[in-house]
């Protein structure tokens, strides 16, 4: 059976003032049905660009330069706008980062949840409302029967994120993209939302692409991890393997920076010195070369290729002997 999502050689450019900015370069990964894949990287590494590209909702200034995205065997970049829209919500849905702005402020939650079921023409308004209520109950909104008529501003941030998740699940998608769903929330709420997602996964059986910059979240929640750096994929591995045996220097540096893995008596947070490379520059070297403590001559001379280091574990680094 074909993988649920197959991204192959995907490159996305943004129009810059003088030259294009390469937001994503040659991304290649696949996702099986029912799996949870974590997409990790620091700000500006292209995580959100990748998730929006999968929905074909990139800003007009972005351009897919090359590559294919196959969803359930279908090349979605070749689909008509109409066919793509039929996929959204039904097969692929997305939960966004900031629950404060992802709900329409002037419509009640119920009105929005009923409207989003516009494809179920055979359901009456009453049935749609009942579905919405049961999903609100499912995501843990207390007294959903009454609260469904409230407006978004009458809910707290955590509640709104629950509502966003309920809305995304109304179409029973096969793939749920969660773009940093907990970043705008505080730590207790973060744990609650992740618990909820984990819970929901049991009954909804879909795959989740979890975008996060938080390694702890990924470690706990995901089956597999894709690490992005400066628009390039540097490593992909099953979650246990990645944490036990990170092969790319960037992944290692990232793990070292995770506060959760610091020794209890650490006096300062480690950081990765340097900054993200110029995303407009042509690809003549390893993207991480400038910040890599182990960089050798070759790293600055040519970009590394993805190398299989173990079953299901790939990394792009010259030091792995490619």
């Amino acid at each position, binding site marked *: 059976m074909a993988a649920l999502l197959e991204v192959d050689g995907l490159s996305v450019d943004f129009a810059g003032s003088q030259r294009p900015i390469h937001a994503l370069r040659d991304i290649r990964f696949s996702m099986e049905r029912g799996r949870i894949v974590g997409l990790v990287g620091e700000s500006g590494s292209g995580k959100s660009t990748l998730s929006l590209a999968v*929905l074909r*909702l990139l800003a007009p200034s972005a351009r897919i330069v090359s590559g294919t995205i196959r969803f359930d065997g279908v090349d979605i970049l070749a689909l008509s706008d109409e066919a793509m*829209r*039929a*996929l*959204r*919500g*039904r097969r692929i*849905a*997305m939960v*966004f980062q*900031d629950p*404060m*702005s*992802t*709900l*329409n*402020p*002037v*419509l009640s939650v119920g009105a929005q949840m009923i*409207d*989003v079921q*516009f*494809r179920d023409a055979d359901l009456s308004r009453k049935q749609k409302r009942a579905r919405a209520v049961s999903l609100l109950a499912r995501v843990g909104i207390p*007294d959903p029967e009454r*609260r469904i*008529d*409230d*407006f*978004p*501003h*009458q*809910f*707290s*941030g955590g*509640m709104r994120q629950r509502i*966003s998740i309920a*809305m*995304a699940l*109304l*179409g029973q998608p096969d793939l749920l993209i969660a773009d940093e769903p907990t970043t705008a929330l505080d730590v207790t709420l973060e744990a609650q939302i992740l618990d909820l997602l984990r819970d929901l996964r049991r009954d909804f059986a879909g795959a989740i692409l979890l975008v996060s910059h938080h390694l702890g979240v990924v470690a706990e929640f995901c089956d597999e991890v894709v690490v992005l750096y400066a628009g390039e994929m540097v490593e992909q591995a099953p979650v246990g393997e990645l944490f036990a045996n990170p092969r790319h220097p960037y992944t290692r540096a990232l793990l070292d920076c995770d506060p959760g893995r610091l020794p209890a008596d650490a006096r300062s947070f480690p950081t990765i010195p340097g900054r993200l490379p110029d995303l407009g520059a042509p690809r003549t070297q390893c993207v991480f070369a400038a910040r890599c403590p182990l960089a050798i001559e070759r790293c600055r001379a040519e970009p590394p290729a993805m190398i299989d280091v173990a079953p299901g574990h790939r990394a792009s680094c010259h030091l792995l002997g490619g």
Partner: protein
Amino acid sequence: MSAPTFEEATAPVPQRRSALRHLLADPLGRFGLTLVLVILLTAIFADAIAPYNPTAIAVPNRLQGPSLAHLFGTDQLGRDVFSRVVLGARIALEVALVAITLALAVGGALGLAAGYGPRWLDGILVLVFDTIRSFPTIMFALALVTLIGPSLETVIVVVVATFAPSYGRIVRTQTQALKHAEFILAERSLGAGAVRILAVHAVPNIVGPLFILASMDVPVVITIEAGLSFLGFGVRPPTPSWGTVLNDGYAFIGNTPWIILAGGLPLVLSTLGFTFLGEALRDAIDPRLRKEI
């Protein structure tokens, strides 16, 4: 209202109130609503309220002062000014409501298309809006009257052409701001198409400010109708309109000032009424502005 503002997370609000109850809780809203209702009812039941035929000429009774028989006196042809003012309300509201509804429909549709559609369409529509807006209303009215003659329809066409571009520009700007709102992206990610986005999500966000604007434009349109009728470009005599009443009174302002007052007072009251109502409506319709009372 580009970026929706949100107050911090609030505790569950126990009671919900309908827009009407919000409106009634505001004293200015009550005042505006009362005035507007009085004007509306006057217009609807004008035939029953008016004690005389507003066009019946009785020259022997001309230019009488206010009395029990003639509340606002009579004009130079002996017509009952009160009856003329009462029926004038009907003309004024007819013109205002029809013209503004048309202007909202035309301007709104074009504004949505300009704001959400491709850039070339936006360019063309904005050029059209600005071109029309650059004509002074009066010049436009003059040209139109020369072309199709003075009538009620002429007034309506003038008003629609004057107001539709303004509504269009407002709707366009609001739509453009909304286009990039995160919740629109979220809706698109769930498969909503352009029509659904505009009808279900953009319009309710825009309609509040547009509604208040439109209801505050009602007296402006009434004034335009009165003005054009005063100048002889609008309602033809002997049909009663506040403008023609004013015109009739204007000639005799020295001896019989009550005719001017009778024509002017309803203009003042309708302006106040619709303006207060518009402001109160805005607060009541937009849930973000609702105060818990």
